[in-house]
């Protein structure tokens, strides 16, 4: 049994179908990346795990079904969600932004806070600064930090590099890899930036119009001419 099992998952916005019968297995301690263009359904897939959309099918974390659980329970089960960086609380300090994530993991606040500051020392320097005044990369760090404050065992990260400078993308990739290596955290990332995804993920899933078109290890897919042509433009 895989750590996270997504079984025949379909998602809907009203009558419109956004995902069709998705099957994904994630082993504990792995980093996987869901890649695809805009509108492929990547964010919908992560939203579905958090029960933010209307779904059919099943999602299980360590064999426990998440599909009918309220969001607070899902987060309580150990699912942390780093949404796009635009979803911060702009007039609140960096530290308060992080503490909002700590409501469901009150016993480990200090421990989680020191983990976040260790991963992103820049956030500690700016902990009293309003998050709305941070740069794009720093906001992304706050978004990741807030998800880590929930004490996750599974971290979902939605397009962490969108609109960021290449140098910042490298920093984010290094932080995620370090997090995975040091804590054994399982990470699911959605990305359009294939270079970034292949740099950190062990497995890739290619999503197109709500369906998984290709999947495999990073090595397998990066040697796949079809994928290279579609996403690397070579």
């Amino acid at each position: 049994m895989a750590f996270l099992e997504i079984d025949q998952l379909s998602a809907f916005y009203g009558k419109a179908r956004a995902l069709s019968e998705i099957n994904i297995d994630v082993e504990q301690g792995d980093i996987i990346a869901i890649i695809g263009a805009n509108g492929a359904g990547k964010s919908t897939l992560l939203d579905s795990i958090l029960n933010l959309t209307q779904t059919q099918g099943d999602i299980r974390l360590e064999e426990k079904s998440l599909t009918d659980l309220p969001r607070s329970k899902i987060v309580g089960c150990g699912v942390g969600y780093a949404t796009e960086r635009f979803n911060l609380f702009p007039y609140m300090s960096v530290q308060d932004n992080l503490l909002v994530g700590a409501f469901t993991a009150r016993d480990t606040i200090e421990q989680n806070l020191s983990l976040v500051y260790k991963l992103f020392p820049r956030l500690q320097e700016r902990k009293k600064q309003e998050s709305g005044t941070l740069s794009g990369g720093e906001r992304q760090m706050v978004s990741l930090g807030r998800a880590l404050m929930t004490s996750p065992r599974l971290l979902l990260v939605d397009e962490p590099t969108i609109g960021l400078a290449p140098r910042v993308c490298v920093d984010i990739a290094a932080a995620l890899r370090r997090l995975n290596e040091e804590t054994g955290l399982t990470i699911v990332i959605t990305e359009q930036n294939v270079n970034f995804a292949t740099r950190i993920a062990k497995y890739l899933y290619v999503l197109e119009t709500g369906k998984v078109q290709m999947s495999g290890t990073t090595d397998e897919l990066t040697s796949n001419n079809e994928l290279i042509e579609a996403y690397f433009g070579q």
Partner: protein
Amino acid sequence: MTGISWRHVALWAVFIIFMLLLPEMVSKGTLRTVIFANFLAIFAISWDVISGRTGYISFGHPFLIGIGAYTTAILSYRFGMPVGLSIPLAVCVTMVAGTLFFLPALRVKGSYFALVTLAFMELMYQLVQVIRPDLTGGTRGMSGVTTLARGAVNNYYLSFGLMIVIAVSMWVLMKTRFGTALSAIGMNEESVRGSGLSTTRLKLFAFMVSAMVAGLGGAFYVHYLGSIAPRALFDINFVFTIIVAVLIGGASTIVGPMLGAFFLTFLLEYLRPYLPGAERYFIYGSIALVIYMYQPKGLYEIVMQQWRKYRVVKAGET
């Protein structure tokens, strides 16, 4: 709990001591103005807890204030219940009404929520006139309601005591993670949900707290005035005065609404000899607009900016 320092405690202490000594320094006429400022501050704080924090703008706050005021007035005046019992009961009833007030927030947001709350106030205005006028006093309301204290000084201390207890408790409550979460809801409710928090529970608690404060304020206000009239209470100008007090002072700060309430009450009072009619409201509206355009975060932020500048200068000197 985050961000409470000895400096905050000292500032509150200085403010309380100053206000306790105020009757020795000003006339009784001024004290009566301060009494109204105290009550406006209570109503503004109540509004701030819901609307300033969560962003659910209420145009119907007099609905909650009115329930508190009418309940204690009816119980004490019509049924002879001691005020010591009728006020807590009125607060409980207002909190139940607060739950009712909360229901639209489950489905609607923004301007729709504001309109629904306005409808609540209008409904209450019509109901108190039509349903059991023998109890509510109908369109005329009630006069001769028991007063709690006599004279400007006693009433001042009573209203100030109530205001300061409410203000400090709300200020401390908003410094907890509950307050942080409410502010977060106001900025990005979806994101709060994504962090695993039940925004429904948080909002319900905020509405109950706000209703409790509105009920307390309304109940004490009617026992200060000794009368209640639906036209004065369920009036759109009353709503705007509460909202403007919060916006001028600084929403989502607790201290801001207090500042705004005092500023507004004294502004209107000092304009009275020069502009006795409705022109006063034009002037106060203009001043509010200028302050709001200059600093949308209100007087509180203006004071804080000066304080920060002072600290920078001080640090430069040393």
